[in-house]
């Protein structure tokens, strides 16, 4: 299936002084001792893909929920800076109305299970158009055109726009969820195991598509995964988490090729190769 080229911010040569988009300051969210995430501190720059890896129960998803505005931290701040805007937004200092508007307008969240992110009872077109309608788009023809355009972007058959997501395969549902999130052209996207539960060939196609879209749209992404191969393919930088803390951080290739921390070494050596 051919995909039309998307107009987007062209980044030809690496911009070494990219502005900080998300400033995470000393985030702690604990459900009990060692359960949750603790003292997390990092910065995400515009156009950057940050991977968070670690085993199950290491606090990755908790951290993502805090970053994505779904769960208030016990301590610390999540500060969002719009490019070209001197003001900064402290995610948990603003009111709920503004926070939800921000999540709707400028951010996106891709769930691990597409059933959590999609409305399973309404058609694919309505799913893609929902965020546009929430922004006040009230023209049916334009909503439908946007739906078809985005279905083509994620390599779904635009003719299936009136089919409900139930009738789609798992990989197609995940692609539909990505289309639904990206249709409003968010700046920052959070992804929780976007390829979890998909078989390897479907996974490869999805990753390939994600990489293209991220580059074309100049997205900044926080990607949570336990799959190091996914992290290697998509992420520029990695945070390795264990028992709620970041044990190692750095460039993806550097961490995967030359792990320093004992846990990272274990993680890298545990990857199966056929």
């Amino acid at each position, binding site marked *: 299936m051919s995909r039309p080229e998307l107009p987007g911010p062209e980044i030809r040569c690496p911009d070494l002084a990219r502005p900080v988009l998300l400033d995470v300051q000393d985030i702690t969210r604990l459900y009990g001792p060692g359960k949750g995430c603790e003292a997390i501190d990092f910065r995400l720059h515009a156009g950057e893909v940050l991977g968070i890896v670690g085993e199950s129960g290491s606090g990755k998803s908790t951290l993502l929920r805090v970053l994505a505005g779904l769960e208030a931290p016990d301590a610390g701040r999540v500060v969002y800076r719009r490019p070209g805007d001197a003001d900064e937004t402290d995610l948990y200092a603003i009111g709920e109305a503004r926070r939800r508007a921000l999540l709707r307008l400028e951010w996106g969240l891709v769930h691990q299970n597409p059933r959590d992110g999609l409305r399973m009872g*309404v*058609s694919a*077109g309505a799913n893609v158009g*929902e965020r546009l*309608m*929430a*922004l006040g788009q009230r*023209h049916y023809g334009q909503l439908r055109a946007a739906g078809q355009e985005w279905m083509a972007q994620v390599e779904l058959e635009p003719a299936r*726009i009136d089919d409900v997501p139930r009738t789609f395969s798992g990989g197609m549902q995940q692609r539909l969820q990505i289309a639904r999130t990206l249709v409003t052209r968010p700046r920052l996207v959070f992804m929780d195991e976007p390829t979890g539960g998909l078989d390897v060939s479907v996974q490869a196609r999805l990753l390939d598509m994600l990489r293209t879209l991220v580059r074309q749209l100049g997205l900044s992404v926080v990607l949570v995964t336990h799959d190091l191969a996914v992290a290697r393919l998509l992420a520029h930088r990695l945070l390795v988490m264990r028992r709620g803390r970041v044990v190692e951080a750095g460039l993806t290739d550097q961490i995967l090729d030359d792990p320093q921390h004992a846990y990272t070494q274990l993680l890298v050596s545990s990857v199966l190769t056929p």
Partner: protein
Amino acid sequence: MNGYNFAYLDEQTKRMIRRALLKAVAIPGYQVPFGGREMPMPYGWGTGGMQLTASILGADDVLKVIDQGADDTTNAVSIRAFFERVAGVETTTVTTAASVIQTRHRIPETPLEPGQILVFQVPIPEPLRFIEPSEQETRLMHALEEYGVMHVKLYEDIARHGHIATTYAYPVKVAGRYVMDPSPIPKFDNPKLDMSPALLLFGAGREKRLYAIPPYTRVESLDFEDHPFEVQRWDERCALCASADSFLDEVITDDAGGRLFVCSDTDYCESRREESA
């Protein structure tokens, strides 16, 4: 009065409902919870509307009760008889003579006048319910004015049927703020809600919610720019009164395909026939 307090409910209950009604009138379209009482009939038969009627009824009020526009259906007849017995108020079937009209599924064709009160029976007061099952979430959506999902439902209609196929309980936006379910009236009646000179009260007995549209309030039906809101139209006229602009019911007259269209509002139809006679 047969051992009942005036209008069946005790005075404390009526006061509580009146307080909730004042709040509802102050915030048009907002669903106010109230302590619903058991009424001597099952939920779904108009217990919400009856509690509101009982609370606002005075000794000199004139009550009319309609069900699907008709004064002579079971629901209308029994609720009218109920208030005759427990309140002793005068009842009527003439729209213009009534001060309080309790209704199920219709707004009378005869234009309402200032000072009249229309009480609707509501089965499901939450317009977002079919899209968002969580009550906590729908309340938050109302509070933050997140109504984008209402259009998802209309979008689905057009995608499936080529036009907005919702014909009753068509969602409206009241005074530019709250999205409201106008109870299962046909969308034919939606334009009558807009800038109505009468006070419109809505009561849901099972869900224990009430809401209101004060007189002369702007009420818009939701739609798309390229699929504007439209009401039902008929090619036929009423077979009895020849009205061309009222809501018509199709009546099957025999088993050989015989049918005719008649006004659903019986009082309107009768008054037109008397005029022409």
